[in-house]
């Protein structure tokens, strides 16, 4: 049981800070090119609960604490999940980029090799290709 409005306000501040940190983690994941759809839905749920907590703070401190705690609970492990998604996206982008660039270099090299082989064969046999 929570009797103090200050205590409820403190819980709401905690939940607010957790939500802000989670949002910053989402921004980082988004910058890295991760798919943030799931993260956003989690964040929205936590945000709605936090809004509820603020709305009932002046009339029902106990409910405000419950909402704030529930909001924070929604964000358990959130930053780790966002970081993992960001890392995976960064790696994926790096490999995609490398495959594309190396692939195009390979095409050019392959073309040169084929051209050299054909040229030698043509010079050796004197026949037309």
């Amino acid at each position, binding site marked *: 049981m929570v009797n103090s409005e200050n205590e409820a306000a403190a819980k709401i501040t905690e939940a607010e800070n957790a939500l802000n940190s989670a*949002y*910053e983690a989402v921004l980082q994941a988004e910058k890295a090119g991760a798919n943030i759809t799931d993260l956003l839905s989690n*964040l929205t749920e936590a945000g709605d609960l936090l809004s509820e907590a603020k709305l009932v703070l002046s009339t029902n401190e106990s409910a405000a604490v419950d909402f704030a705690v529930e909001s924070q609970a929604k964000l358990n492990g959130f930053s780790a999940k966002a970081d993992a998604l960001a890392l995976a996206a960064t790696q994926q982008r790096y490999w*995609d980029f490398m495959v594309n660039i190396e692939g195009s270099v390979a095409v050019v090299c392959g073309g*040169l090799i084929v*051209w050299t082989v*054909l040229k030698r064969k*043509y010079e050796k046999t004197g026949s037309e290709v």
Partner: protein
Amino acid sequence: MGLQNYRVLFMAVTGILALLVASPALSRLLVYPRTEFFTELSLLDLNHRAENYPYNITRGLNYSVFLEIANHLGYTAYYLVEVKFRNQTQSAPTSFGPLANRTPSSLPSLYNITVFVADEEVWEREVVFSFNYGFNETLLKVEFFNMTLNGVERDLRGLSTAWNASSNRFYGNLVFELWLFNASSSAFQYHERFVDLKLNMTVS
């Protein structure tokens, strides 16, 4: 025809193939930069049009509008919508003129909506509201008791509105202010825009 005659054709085919293979990577580098970053905030009626907004209010009846936010900021935005209710003499928000002059209403928020919107996405929510008020026949004023916003009752005691002869109404103004979270300062800042409903609180 000698092999040399095919040289240009061979080089062209090889070049095109190389560009095709590199195109996913090149598409990331050669993106035309966006130059306009903004947020759209709008209120729509029940048919999702900007036409039939609630105007003549009857005490105790529910009215609905849709609040819509479209994010074109280039990143996932964290918004806060502060819902305020004012009479004609109380502080109003501004959204025109130089940025420094655009200010929110100084009134406390009655209801907050926390919204996360991905870039180029649109968020929408129905807002249902009703008012409970009485008419003071001596002072010719509408005196508010409370209002309900999406099922949450908010106290409006002490707030009243006098008859406005120029617009022929008991003026009430429901305001939706948009605030944006600034990650670098870890605080919400007024996003220099709001939408509102100008209402006539009927007493008959």
